């Protein structure tokens, strides 16, 4: 009963949002079904451009985080370090605003030596950075169920360390890598706080555009774009859950 209540509390607002994205009126009074706001969405240059930016950033950051995080998780499993795994969990609980400010300070300091400016690349690096911890945690959890004798068996059968890692450990990790990547993707695509701090003029992301639009007043187009995001992320999360359990 309580679970049902909690579930409703979590999801009823999303449901209302989805319903009103199909409303013919721009106000919260139902006036009939319409795809009007979805059509308007397709016409909005700013929204589309920022959505493309968000996708590029999320894909690049996910790829970076997945590769580095997999290697880091594997290394931590091989030779565990309380300090490193501890600092990983710390980075998971660090308030975003602090992560954002520290990244901004870090980039500003780097820019004193390298003539670069804030832009897509800094957003990608920032996103790869904060999603790295998620990837490592997922990989480490999967490695804990790995039988080290499997790698020894590969070495025993003539594989070098690298071949054993590539042909035995990576296939074992594959579902976890995919799940971790999807997790990284979802935390990257909807990040606002950190992104708004480290983004340059050319790297407006979808959450930033939505936030700017929402501040200008009620706009049912936002209902439409939010519905699309929720549905897409829902699919990603479901897939990653299924893979994580595989």
């Amino acid at each position, binding site marked *: 009963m309580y679970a049902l209540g909690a579930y409703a509390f979590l999801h009823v607002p999303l449901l209302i949002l989805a319903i009103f994205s199909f409303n013919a009126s721009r106000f919260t009074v139902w006036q009939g079904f319409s795809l009007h706001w979805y059509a308007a969405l397709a016409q909005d240059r700013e929204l589309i451009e920022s959505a493309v930016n968000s996708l590029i950033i999320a894909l690049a950051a996910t790829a970076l985080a997945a590769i580095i995080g997999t290697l880091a998780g594997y290394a931590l499993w091989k030779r565990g370090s309380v300090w490193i795994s501890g600092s990983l969990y710390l980075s998971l609980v660090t308030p975003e605003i602090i992560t954002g400010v520290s990244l901004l300070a870090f980039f500003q300091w780097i820019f004193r030596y390298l003539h670069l400016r804030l832009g897509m690349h800094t957003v990608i690096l920032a996103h790869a950075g904060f999603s790295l911890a998620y990837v490592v945690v997922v990989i480490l959890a999967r490695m804990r169920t790995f039988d080290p004798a*499997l790698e020894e068996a590969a070495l025993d059968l003539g594989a070098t360390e690298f071949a054993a890692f590539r042909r035995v450990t990576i296939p074992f990790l594959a579902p976890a890598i995919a799940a971790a990547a999807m997790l990284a993707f979802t935390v990257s695509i909807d990040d606002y706080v950190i992104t708004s701090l480290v983004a340059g003029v050319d790297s407006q992301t979808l959450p930033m555009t939505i936030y700017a639009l929402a501040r200008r007043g009620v706009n049912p187009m936002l209902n439409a774009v939010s519905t699309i995001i929720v549905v897409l992320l829902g699919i990603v999360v479901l897939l990653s859950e299924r893979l994580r359990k595989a």
Partner: protein
Amino acid sequence: MGQENVLELRRVSKRFGGQLAVGDVSLSVPRGAFFSLLGPSGCGKTTTLRLVAGFEQPDQGEIWLNGSRLDGLPPYRRNVNTVFQNYALFPHLTVQGNIEFGLRHKAANGIADRVRRVLDQVRLAGKESRSPAQLSGGERQRVALARALVLEPDVLLLDEPLSALDPQLRKQVRAELKELQRRVGVTFLFVTHDQEEALAMSDYIAVMSRGAVEQIGAPEEIYHRPATRFVASFLGTMNWIGGVGLRPEALRMTREAAVNSRRGVVTGKTFLGSVVYVESQLENGEICSAQAVNGAANFTPGEVVHISWNESDELRLPE
């Protein structure tokens, strides 16, 4: 098949963080032999096997295979292969994929033929496309064997390969494994803590305790002429009466006193089908277990018995 040694360990030692795992072990394994390392857990038998496989490197000593130095080489450069305790089959590969794994890494020719031949040898033909999860325990063990045998190693290393099987199957697989070894002619270095297993299968047994080899010999030799008290107690049952060792089958129990017999009281019986072990307490407090043919004598607990033996059956061993 010559009688020379295919594998030799010369004064090999290995420590783990100051803890001695293997101390000054020397072994010579004749080509084609079924050679067992037998001892309780923690005696260093598995470490010895891992030193030969290359998963560990010795701190001291030398390992020789077919006349060339083995220690220092990584596992993938050694012509020995391992059957792991839990088989360590690759879960993402089929039976075929598991068996091909080594051949692909050695860029061998005629992979398909060699896989087919070894599948026949271990009676797994027709199961090529199964995944390890779809196999029974016995089949998994045979895939592990096939995966190692297909590379034609100079020595096959087996780390308690029967311990993951249920007891019923274990005895059957024991005979099959011995038969396979004889047929293929591969040298086996077989690690076990099960003395019955070692006695039943081996040509030679090295009994290990606390990182050291206590005795090396044929099963009969080790059983009948143990070199130390440890070996005597570890293989089969050993009674210690007045400081000398006596096997249960060497003791005679009678209701009347005999020459040089000891008086005792029956305390219990262990029925093992064809034989019965009768436990008695002697007057000086020592406990002994005597073997009696079932039905020959019905001793009951509390009864007074007289225990005697031939002097030639006494084993005098240093502490």
